[in-house]
């Protein structure tokens, strides 16, 4: 079902993250952190702490990987299941 997002959030594809930490460094509200866990390629990947994202998008442009970060701003119309998959 399609829903309109009431608050922004970001999704990080952990397999596409190389752990460079540039997104964490640039995030103005400090809601990203590096995971204790490794992805399959041996990188500690970046994670969203789960709350507080403003949808500003600076992490998206800070990230050198094409598809590692997706930013959903407030008001975006998305499939409901996107909220649960992570």
């Amino acid at each position, binding site marked *: 079902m399609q829903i309109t997002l009431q608050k922004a959030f970001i999704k990080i594809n952990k397999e596409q993250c190389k*752990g460079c930490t540039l997104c964490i460094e640039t995030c*103005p509200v400090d809601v990203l952190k590096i995971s204790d866990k490794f992805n399959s390629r041996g990188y500690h990947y970046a994670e969203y702490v789960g709350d507080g994202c403003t949808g500003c998008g*600076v992490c*998206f442009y800070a990230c*050198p990987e*094409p*598809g590692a970060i997706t*930013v959903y701003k407030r008001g*975006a*119309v998305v499939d409901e299941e996107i909220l649960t998959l992570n």
Partner: protein
Amino acid sequence: MATTILKKPGTFYEVFTRKPDADKINTHYCPGCGHGKLHKLIAEAIEDFGIQDRVIIINPVGCSVFLYYYFDTGHIQVAHGRAPAVATGIKRVHPHSIVISYQGDGDLAAIGGNEILHAANRGEHITVFFVNNAIYGMTGGQMAPTTLPGMKTTTTPRGRDIRNEGYPLKMAELIATLDAPVYVERVALTDAKNMARARKAVRKAIQIQMENKGFAFVEALSACPTGWGMNPPDAEKWINEVMTKYFPLGVFKDISDKVEPVKFEKKVLSPEEIKKAIGVDGETLTMKKYQRNIVAEKYKNPKIKVAGFGGQGILLLGLVLAQAGMLEEYNVSWLPSYGPEMRGGTANCHVNISEFEIASPLVSIPTALIVMNRPSLEKFEPTVKSGGLIIYDNSLIDIEPSRKDVEVIPVPATKIADDIGSTKVANMVMLGAYIGYTGILTKESVFDALDIVVKRKELNELNRRAIEAGIEYVM
């Protein structure tokens, strides 16, 4: 309405199937590499402008050589530093395409310094993205033209010494001094503020080309955490704090408001115009059928080497042979080989005339050697195939070939030419002697070939007389 989802731009392939290794989702770049950030800005702009089908990206040599793994656009991967030259060619042939030259600092500022300056100076309608990370990243961090004074690299282990290695090249400033470029800016692929500026610059540089305004150049200071031995955030800090001191950010030139857009008109030539443009009167020559001579077995399918001084018309002799062979519907090849001198040096050419497909245009073991000076006779006599033929100009060459296993025909070509009226047609006397002796080509086809390849047609009367004199001499 503003975009509400920021995701992988559609300009990128969904899966990087061109990438040979198992991982087809991630780029080959190191963590924190500036290339990825610039790729994303370019990909996003291409998608937003709806020009994906028109974009041709010139892939350089350097880490970004594999751009074609990632961008679902047209690509050409070119030799080191030559991207602006190739971009020029593509843009001129396809003015409606959007041609993007993407180059690193080793590529653009060192080996390709010449190409970029001239492309910029001609005001080519291309967009150039110049990634400056102050070193050669792909090969392991050697000094580049953009390396900062005192900066340690693998080839400047004590730091770049300006007294020995000179100063960093400031490409954006340099290009901005030229008259033709429309837009020149330097940006940094670092923090949020600089990324916003970089994004604007990338879009503007592409838009200038879309509006047919001219040459746009964006230099992007880019992190190479691996080459610099820093973690990615520190590398970006280093750009902001150190690199920008030497390479200041900003717009160095922008006349995009003032320049008149160029109108590219598609010109479609009619067959007649094409024939006229390439100087071929297609009707009379290609329609004609030529009767071939019956050729003795040993002279069939000759591999010919023609050799002599530059200026004797050696290459033309070979060219007429090949052209006449083509008229008689043989397979032919002609390969010139000469030094830098127009006159006085040695020249030779390789000619194949064959009933069969020609596997190689090279003639290393000739079956016929037509030779017009002594150094060439001495050089090539030993290479002639046993049972082959040597025709030499004995009015110029004061020795005789010593080989006993080949046929040797002396022809005083230069003397005969002199008697006819011009030393210059000695080559045609040699040609006449060769076709007269072997019968490989008919006089008719050779005469017609002359009319095709000789630019100054008024000389052909004399050429024809020289050929006939050559034929007569050997008969």
